[in-house]
């Protein structure tokens, strides 16, 4: 641990290994959790999980909300707003379509799945 604190390169590698571990474990968790999904729910599972993949909206918010600086080296679009803001803005739109549309359409669909009683 002490070495990590002293050495930034090592800290970076350590963080990478941590997120890599989370990535690999999450794939296994996802696989086990969904393994026995019945065909009835294939479509809702797709649209529902697709809504969850709209989590990029978190990244989009971070990008669109980046602090405005006048000394930025990146391409400026308008006033103090740069290309990253524009990309973030577009990403927020598409990710929100994904999130809102995905959860709502899944809910609508599941509403129609009924038993005989």
């Amino acid at each position, binding site marked *: 641990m002490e070495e990590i604190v002293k050495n930034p390169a090592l800290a970076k590698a350590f963080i990478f290994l941590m997120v890599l571990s989370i990535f690999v474990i999450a794939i296994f968790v996802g*696989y086990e959790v969904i393994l026995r999904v019945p065909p009835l729910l*294939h*479509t809702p599972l797709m649209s529902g999980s697709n809504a969850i993949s709209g989590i990029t909206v978190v990244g989009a*918010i971070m990008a669109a909300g980046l602090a405005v600086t006048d000394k930025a080296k990146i391409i400026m679009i308008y006033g103090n707003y740069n290309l990253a803001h524009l990309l973030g803005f577009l990403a927020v739109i598409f990710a929100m379509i994904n*999130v809102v549309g995905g959860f709502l359409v899944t809910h609508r669909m599941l509403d129609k799945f009924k038993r005989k009683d």
Partner: protein
Amino acid sequence: MVELVIINLSYLFASVLFILGLKKLSHPRTAVRGNLYGAIGMLIAIVVTLFDKDVFPKQTWWILLSGAAIGSLIGAVGAYKVKMTSMPEMVALFNGFGGLASTLVAGAALLDAVDKGMGNDLQVTISSAASGLIGAVTLWGSLVAFGKLYGLKIVPDRPVRYPGEQIVKVALLALSIFLTVMIVKHPENMNYYIWMNVVGSLLGILLVVAIGGADMPVVIALMNSYSGIAAAATGFVLTNNVLIVSGSLVGASGIILTQLMCKAMNRSLANVLFGGFGAVSESASADEVYGGKIKSVSPDDVAIYLDTASKICIVPGYGMAVGQAQHAVKDLTTLLESQGKEVDFAIHPVAGRMPGHMNVLLAEVDIPYDKLKEMDEINPAMGSYDVAIVLGANDVVNPDGRTNPKSVIAGMPIIDVDKAKTVIVIKRSLSPGFAGIPNPLFALDNSFMYFADGKKAILDLVVALKNLVAV
């Protein structure tokens, strides 16, 4: 410091909600709650991100709010307006948007990293490259799938194949590796990132135009998986756990569905993506199979068979979706049940154009889901059905899959309708299904062809049945 801890604990909580949500989403009784868990997890993740004061300064709040408002509005209108019959297109489009969002975020994050002097961070540059590639593949692959499903004229439903196809794809993959190296070496030059997107777009288009309509369930499931992996790659760019966890969950669920679809066709994923049908088959010609053995029947004949039957099974296929015949099917089912007959539905996993397509259509017309039988469940009992009605399905009921080891569909699990006492096949003509081979089922002694458009066929049948009872 406190803020950092609160935000990350909230992300962890959101991730847990996503896992529980997906778990509940895969059981019929808890599915609605599962979807709700997912939505709550998302709300939490979004709200805490807005509370991060680093990302929500005064000058940029209007960008966020207007973007979120526009996106939510489009998403909500789309979700409420879409017809259940258009669900495959809708799912394809949403997958594509997810990929696009990931690509845009990775691009923005790369720009920002360079601006802050962190362009030499390998994790940022390599995962940006990956996110750009996978996101673009997802976007354009999904758009082509959308075009095929929607019936856009510029995108043919049939597979588009050309000489040297695989070489082109391999070359594009090699190019993407080269571009990854260039992005790592020159992160400040955004042209490489743009080129990466171009290569990904081409790859996505070429991958999906080569796939025919009947293989769409595999493609849709695969794009679902990619949209998750793209989100996870973006999570690596930002070192953000909630993105990585949710992206991997979606990636894994897409992989499972892809595997299920491939298994239901007895083909490998590589075969669907790179091989496909259309090759020379060793099956007999249509004349040899059908010659003089096809018995065509009228609605009145079918009504007589149904009148004497007590157990009936309906096998829907893509033809039911195309012909919008599900409402007529509901009417027929209600009528038959009012006469004290038992009606079940046999659903093949790849029937239709997306995983679970038939279930959605039949749910739309309020057919209770416990009447929808899975292939493995209904096959052993097939002999007990007096009449099996095949509605717009072909390859999935072709006995060659079970009995003819030389057929292109050899080994493909099928619904054993040939074992029912009587088989009625509703079809417009004897034209082959997607596999391009004749179906010996049509020539069997116990099977009868009822040539008509799916919806009209069922409506005429309902009339014929009512007349029969009235007499």
